[in-house]
């Protein structure tokens, strides 16, 4: 199975965390929290597009609301493929990191 890239992984997890409220703005915030830096709004979309094409997420178009200047909102939800991919990534992570202590890569003082 194809492995996710780190950024894809972060975004997928963010979407999972956000449950029913995953769309551009919220995802950007969540990603920002995880990576500790501010992401350009536009930086998120190419990944979402890729994930969408890969079938990891599906989109739901919500009702247009006044606070968005009368525009609709596109919500993202994990598909089963997405869930599987995350589970796989997690397994890979665990195997890869097995037996390595957290301080292993600290710089020797």
């Amino acid at each position: 199975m194809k492995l996710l890239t780190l950024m894809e992984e972060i975004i997928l997890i963010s979407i999972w965390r956000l449950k029913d409220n995953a769309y551009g703005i919220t995802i950007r915030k969540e990603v920002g929290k995880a990576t500790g830096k501010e992401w350009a709004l536009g930086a998120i979309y190419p990944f979402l597009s890729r994930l969408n094409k890969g079938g990891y997420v599906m989109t739901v178009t919500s009702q247009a609301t006044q606070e968005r200047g009368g525009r609709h909102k596109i919500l993202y939800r994990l598909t089963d493929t997405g869930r599987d991919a995350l589970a796989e990534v997690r397994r890979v992570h665990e195997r890869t990191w097995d037996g390595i202590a957290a301080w292993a890569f600290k710089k020797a003082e």
Partner: protein
Amino acid sequence: MKNTASPPRLARWLLNRFSGWGDDFGAAGDFEEFYRDLAAERGIRKARRACWKQVGAVFPGHLKNVILWSDAMLKHYLRVAGRNLWKHKGYSFINIAGLAMGMACAFLVLLWVQDELSYDRFHADAGTLYRLEQESDSGQGLFRHAASPYALGPIMKAEIPEILDAVRLASPGSLLARAGEKAFFESRVYAADPQIFRQFTFPLLKGDPATALALPGTLVVTEETARKYFGEADPMGKTVIFNDAHPFTITGILKTIPPNSSLSFDMLVPFDFVKTLGKYTDSLTGSDITTFVRLYAQSGAATAAPKITRLVMDRALSEVQANHEAAKFLQSNPAVLRRFQSRTFLLRPIVDIHLYGSRQAIRNVAIYSAFSLSILLIACINFMNLATARSAVRSREIGLRKVVGAQRKSLIGQFYGESLLTAFLAGAASLVFVIFLLPPFNGLTGKMMGPEVLLKARSLLGILAVILFSGIVAGSYPALFLSAFRPVKILQGRLGGARSSVFRKTMVVLQFGLSILFLIGFGVVLRQVDYMRAKNLGYDKERMIYLPMRDKAPLSYAAFKERLLKSPCIAGVTATRHPPTAITANSASADWDGKNPDARFTISFASVDFDFPETMKIEMIAGRTFSRTAASDIRRAFLVNEDVPKLMGLDPVSALGRRFVFRGYEGTIVGVMKNFHYRSVRYATEPLAVVVDPKEFRYAVIRLAAGGIPASLEEVQKTWRQVYPQYPFEFRFFDQDFDLMYRQEERLGAFIKALSVLAVFIACLGLFGLASYMAERRTKEIGVRKILGASPSSIVLLLSKEFARWVAAANLFAWPAAYFLMDKWLRQFAYRQEIAGWLFVAAGAGALAIALATVSFQAIRAAHAAPTRALKYE
């Protein structure tokens, strides 16, 4: 009203355009929400800024995309363009050669303009440095000059909060500088405040900038000056004696002052030296020195200047009130009073001194830029014309491309690709030209630019801009016009060529019009310079030299003159207060019996020696010249030129014997001289009065006798050495001064000459291409005509007639334009050579002849081709 509830519309649009997300992700809505959140949280301004930041963040990626995708297309365009260039080598050569010449011209002028604009920008604090200038009403309009009182600098610095520092530069005049055996007169010496090295970027090679001028008796010299006196020896700590009385010790060596500095000097001494010389005054009424001011911020200039004016005015007023005599003098002299009261101080940014100061370099920058752009335009027109002329041939290719499915956009791309490739090739060729042309160009402009100036970032940007500009200008017409062809019509062979041929004609007319304009301009400038050079000055300037008598030299003038006159090599000796080729002193204080007390006349003034009219060979109209035997002639007798009696309302003879009071001299008019040019012929002669005053001699003026000039000069030098063993011998020919006076005009003339040659050549190059194309297109027609019995000469006529008509038409707009421009140019001269009609005819006929010669080469070839071959093709 701005819609503050949603993000900036432009940002929204850009984002939408660049991102290419479409609205698959609800990005537009997200953006909106993002903005609203931010606006609510941190305010609208921050939110808007954040929106723009988002746009900025997207842009590089977008650009990368565009370039990556168009890379393939770009390669294709270039390949097609390259093939086309190669296939039509002749046209390509004409295009590239013409463009290269036009560009070389543009690049040279670009370098020159950059050099002009770079004046004084090398100072680290150039942005906050200002020269203090003042403006006053002299009764003949506002008069602005860069002078300020001695004492003002420190006072301003203390009183005006905007001013960070002020540096005063006073010229002590010409000083005799002696170091060991060597002695020279140094006129480029400034007495300066010690912080000069902090305020300006004049780096010291040796010595400490903080202390170099701090103590009395310290001296800073430039590298070259040090070399002049001490050769290769270390000059630090050496002694230079000024005027054989004031010893100075060298405490610093200045790096050579760059040529693009408007402030330039050879030596610096502490400011207090002017006090030693007794020139200094605490009074704020005078204006004797230059003051440079450094402000805390640029914004302070507007508020600081009025404060300086008020400060000086207040102090000067109380000064005058305290001094009874000065007050009385002011009251009795309305003109002086007006000048005093209207004194306004202004701050001129140091970077503007060269461009907008008295040199007005910005005018030349504009003129030369316009010239070189015209040449570039002429070269671009060649490209456009040849491309449109070939459009009929190319139209098949275009039609086929369209049929196969080429978009108009890609055709436009193709044409631009072609023109840009041509432009880049031409640019490369022109850089080679530029490197070879720089030395003569430097000679023409008096600059010192090496090929390395091309490598400066600004030059490179400029060069790239010129290339892109000419590529786009040259490619636009074919790109936009040819790409619009309808394929069906093209392939049917029904192409409306009329429009493009009108365009082409207009362009040729424009090209030749500009060429004729240059030719006429060249003629007018040349004639004016010749005219000024040949103008009868009213005296004989041949074999005239003058020698400055500095320091105490005038005291021994009588002995010098006496010895000189003993030699047969010397025809005459006299003396003057001012250089005799540039008498610039004038005054409005003249008075005479019967003068209307309210009227004020500006009269030029010179103090001279007895033999002035005789030595200069000035003709007398009435009365006598100065007489040595009449004791009353010293300081009591006036010689005037013929304009003065006119002012007095008298004829020359009746002016004789009149009482005349001028510049503190009181006496009678004893003679009237014919008008002569006592300064540049650029200016009209004005009323002049001269008086004999031995105290005022500063220049010895000598007429050498007929015979060998070197021998005569030898004689003068020998005499000088006998009388003045302590002073170096310096002299100037009058002719040298006159050469300098017309240098600017001669440069302009040489420049226009080069330009007109270039313009005609490039235009002919284009015409040659057009003619060969026309002949090619009409091969069949010519064949048929010949079979029907047309003679070769009638065919040559047929082909040349049309071109002749275009060039003749060019005169229609070139003549009035040339008349208008040159008339305007000539107005700056008091004496001008009127614009001659034959000049126009000659320029027009010359252009026509050259054009016809170019065209007939092709026409004759076409006319003599065997008709069978012409008809056989296809």
